[in-house]
């Protein structure tokens, strides 16, 4: 099902992210359930859809499309993430046709992390097109033509999502790009991780008039070390001191409980400003249901 149908009905849309395994998924029956499917199982019934990352952080692994299809077979609604880093305009369009043919309904169009951040640092980065152009091209495929204007035998029918980073300075430049994404075809947005409701408010004051649904992006800080690591190494994210301190104030065993508490506090403040939540639990998918039940 397309997430846009849910937004249109006024649903508060919940998604959670999984990263495909580094390996193949040849047999879906027998053998151990792969990590990404296990994580999806943990949030079953508590989220509307599962985002499937595309070689996240430029680390080579199972493709997002294959993992999305496998999750769909298990009864989940995947949001197929697609980046511009590894494929040119021919491959991207072809994969969008492939995604729709294989039953995918939702695509999240991103620029992608740079190659040098990952585990194949010497790879040639593609970036033939950017995320705004990808959205426009995907919209064209929905309307029955490729980017060169050639007719398709059958149009795609994909809900098109995009991302925005509310932490970005200068914010107006980020929002300028957000508007371009909307004009190009973005129908919903998921945000980068935000830990300060004031930052969110600053953005939503300006984005309300855009009239597109926004899901609050949540990266669960699992330890004080992770908070510090994110501040030093993950561009465009700021984990405030109070979170690092609170996570450090409890024993290791109690960290999940603390993370639930902190996340709930943030969600309660930010919820009135958004149309949904997007969890990026990074292995802690088991706390998503706890958070959702408590909301």
């Amino acid at each position: 099902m397309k997430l846009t149908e849910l937004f249109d009905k006024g649903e508060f849309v919940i998604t959670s992210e999984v990263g495909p395994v580094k390996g193949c998924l040849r047999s879906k029956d027998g053998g151990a359930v792969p990590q990404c499917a296990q994580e999806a199982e943990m949030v079953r019934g508590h989220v509307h859809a599962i985002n499937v990352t595309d070689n996240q952080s430029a680390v080579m692994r199972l493709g997002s499309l294959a993992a999305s299809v496998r999750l769909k077979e298990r009864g989940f609604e995947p949001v197929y993430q697609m980046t511009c880093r590894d494929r040119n305009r021919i491959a991207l369009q072809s994969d969008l046709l492939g995604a729709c043919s294989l039953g995918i309904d939702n695509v999240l169009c991103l620029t992608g992390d740079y190659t040098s951040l990952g585990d194949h640092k010497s790879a040639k980065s593609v970036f033939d097109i950017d995320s705004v152009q990808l959205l426009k091209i995907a919209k064209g495929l929905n309307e029955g033509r490729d980017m060169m204007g050639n007719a398709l035998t059958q149009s795609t029918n994909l809900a098109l999502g995009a991302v925005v980073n509310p932490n970005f300075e200068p914010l107006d430049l980020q929002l300028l790009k957000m508007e371009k994404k909307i004009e190009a075809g973005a129908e919903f947005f998921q945000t980068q991780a935000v830990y300060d409701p004031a930052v969110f408010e600053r953005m939503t004051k300006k984005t309300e008039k855009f009239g597109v649904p926004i899901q609050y992006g949540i990266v669960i800080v699992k330890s004080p070390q992770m908070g510090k690591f994110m501040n030093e190494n993950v561009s465009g994210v700021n984990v405030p001191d109070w979170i690092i301190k609170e996570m450090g104030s409890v024993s290791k065993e109690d960290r999940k409980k603390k993370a639930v508490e902190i996340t709930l506090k943030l969600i309660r403040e930010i919820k009135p400003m958004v149309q949904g939540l997007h969890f990026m639990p990074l292995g802690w998918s088991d706390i998503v249901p706890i958070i959702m039940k408590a909301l």
Partner: protein
Amino acid sequence: MIGTTPKPFEEISHALKGYEKVAVIGCDGCAKVCMTGGSDQVSQMVEKLKENSKNVVFALSPERTCYVDKTKAALDPLMDKLKSAQAVLVLGCGGAVQITRQVLENYGLTIPVKVGLDSVGHIDTLIMGELAIEQCQECGECILNETGGICPVTKCAKSLLNGPCGGAQNGKCEVDSERDCAWILIYNRMIALGESDKLRRFMAPKDYSKMAKPRRLNIKERRVE
């Protein structure tokens, strides 16, 4: 200019293995500015080769080794010595090496031409003798008029045309925290020019066929063919 860096001497030594009589050709154009292949670096290379028991038959630095005529003019008077060389080492960009090979072929000489430098692209000198940076990738369709004279194709790590990715932090690029985010530079420049609204326009995907290699420039007609 074309930026170059020296190859490790071991690599050059390896390339020249088995050739005793060697000619060294530098370049007093870009390689001189990069301090990798000008007359000074050619002299230093000659010394090193001699220490490594090579017989240097001649050494010189044409004004611009990537111009066929200038390289030929420098080599014409040295024909006899050139004929005795078993290999030619060029301290110039990849273009200089290939022009030298071309000139030798035009003379009817089949002498191996070896490269002593690594070429690192079209580079602009900011501080003479200190710093040069890459600012243009010769995309064949310049968009500097739309971007405040700052090139996103080259200066943005991802060559984004419609605004920044989400990764810039404190004005720096997510790929290299020492480097300014090109899109923040463009934005600030467009604001200063009072033209930031122009950035709202959708920029279509680039026509990369204009960069299809190898390009040929018809200089007479001033066009790429």
